[in-house]
């Protein structure tokens, strides 16, 4: 069976890889958007924190702690380091131009990635797929490895839960209000600085969560977040950071676009997201879901 002269197997195979990549784009760009909304900084350390999540999972495995605990512990640990970074460093920059936040987090990313590379080299450490998720299903038109299906489902659930908390709960309404007008929200007796700290911790934890899920698919590598973060920046520019659902949709959508490009024109698969970004900038400069200021 062929579609457009291509075997169905190959097409769906790449579509699946696209959705997997899209899951990571969605989780990471969601974290960036949440952090940007409240802190007004672009967290360049995001890729390094994604990598740290994968490494925490790998460390835990050396001590016999498995995947499921890692999925819980790694985001907490990395989120806690994020909170320390926010308190000690980022908090000093809120009164300055936003560019300083970008420069600081860029420097931190260099430090973290450099230290991990010194310690572990640039070759990857393997991380096995948990036994409960090994194997796969034959769907008739393609073979779906269980772990890959799990990654897509789990990241969708986490993304939608984040959307629900921010858009539909009281806590989320405080967060949105603080994004609009921090002094006013503070005047109502809400501890905005603590909320800012926790928000940063949460965004970082999302990155670490993505890192743990990525560990069995890609190897655990000190440089795994380095180029990914640049692609995620392009995803954020394309989607615009105004809307949570927009970030999620853009992330998954661009993953699929990238997967399809691998089928039809593999030479451009590295660059297609940047090209989409250029086109979106020409047609709709504020991004697909962004509001023009």
């Amino acid at each position: 069976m062929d579609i457009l002269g291509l075997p169905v197997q190959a097409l769906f195979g790449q579509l699946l890889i696209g959705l997997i990549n899209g899951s990571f784009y969605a989780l990471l760009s969601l974290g960036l958007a949440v952090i940007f909304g409240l802190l007004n900084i672009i967290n360049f350390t995001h890729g390094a924190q994604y990598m740290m999540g994968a490494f925490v999972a790998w460390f835990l495995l050396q001590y016999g702690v498995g995947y499921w605990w890692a999925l819980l512990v790694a985001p907490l640990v990395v989120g806690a380091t994020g909170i320390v970074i926010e308190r000690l460093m980022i908090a000093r920059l809120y009164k300055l131009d936003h560019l300083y936040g970008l420069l600081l987090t860029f420097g931190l990313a260099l430090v973290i990635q450099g230290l991990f590379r010194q310690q572990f080299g640039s070759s990857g450490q393997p991380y096995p797929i948990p036994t409960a998720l090994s194997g796969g299903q034959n769907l008739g038109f393609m073979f779906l490895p269980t772990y890959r299906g799990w990654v897509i489902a789990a990241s969708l659930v986490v993304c939608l839960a984040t959307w629900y908390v921010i858009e539909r709960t009281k806590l989320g309404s405080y967060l949105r209000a603080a994004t609009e007008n921090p002094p006013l929200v503070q005047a109502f007796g809400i501890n905005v600085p603590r909320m800012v700290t926790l928000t940063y911790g949460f965004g970082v934890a999302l990155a670490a969560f993505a890192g743990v899920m990525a560990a069995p698919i890609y190897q655990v590598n000190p440089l795994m977040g380095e180029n990914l973060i640049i692609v995620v920046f392009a995803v954020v520019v394309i989607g615009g950071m105004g809307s949570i659902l927009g970030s999620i949709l853009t992330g998954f959508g661009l993953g699929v676009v990238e997967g399809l490009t691998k089928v039809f024109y593999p030479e451009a698969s590295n660059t297609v997201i940047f090209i989409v970004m250029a086109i979106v900038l020409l047609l709709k400069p504020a991004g697909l879901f962004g509001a023009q200021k």
Partner: protein
Amino acid sequence: MAAEIQHQRAGSSAIQEASPPRGFAHHRIAFVVMAALFALAPLVLYPVFMMKVMCFALFACAFNLLLGFGGLLSFGHAMFLGTAGYASAHAAKVWGLTPELAIVFATGCAALLAFATGLLAIRRQGIYFAMITLALAQLVFFFYLQAPFTHGEDGIQAVPRGRLFGLVDLSEPIAMYFLVYAIFIGGFLLIYRTVHSPFGQVLKAIRENESRAISLGYDTDRFKLLAYVLSGTIAGLAGGTKALVFQLATLTDAHWSISGEVVLMTLLGGMGTIFGPVVGAAIIVTMQNQLAQLGGWVTVVQGVIFVVCVLAFRRGVVGEIGHWLKKPL
């Protein structure tokens, strides 16, 4: 928050108020000292090392024109350095052009790239500008990774330096040195002139308050685009020259880490100062040479310098000296 940003920037505004009517004298003195130091340096230091410093200094000055005076943070300036490097190496080696033509061609290529990417990047402001330039530079990097004429990981090697105007043999280190010296000083003076021209003043106005500049009738997008193209072009001049110095053009020059390095040079030397990027480039290139045997630690050290500069040393070396002398340098 806006008020506090104003307050933070009050320092830089004071600089501009003080500089135009008087105070060019100390710029002149500093310039003569700098020009003399670079002219005499090959007597004590390796010429190739000093040529590297001058290329990166010019690159950082070009970057500072955009960030320090236009307030636009580009995180993709490596694309100009890399593009010009490939262009001049290809022109000199494959087409057999003379060195001056190769450099002119390389600079032109960088200018075209700056125009094309600038049209896209200036459509968004602030933090988005940085992300867009980074993404576009990554696009350019992947293009060079795959294009056949760049020879992938090997790069274009053994580029002939040739004869300048068909007369001067540039394989003589001292001849090459003074060509680089002339280009560096020329580029530096061009940037200095630009910053102190009416165009430069409008650019500063846009940096301080874009809406107000628009309300005064300036087409700010055109000013920003012109500044971006000028910055990319001079960065290309530095890149084209550098490829002839090292007789090599590789992917490294187009990699995002170079974009980060030029930000670091400017930040460390002093954003928005005239001489800061030169000092910053000299420090970073020296550090890379001294720490070369430490391998990967260089990245860590650079990251630490970034963090320290942002948290505690935002004026940079030259900015601090200028503040201490009460004369902006």
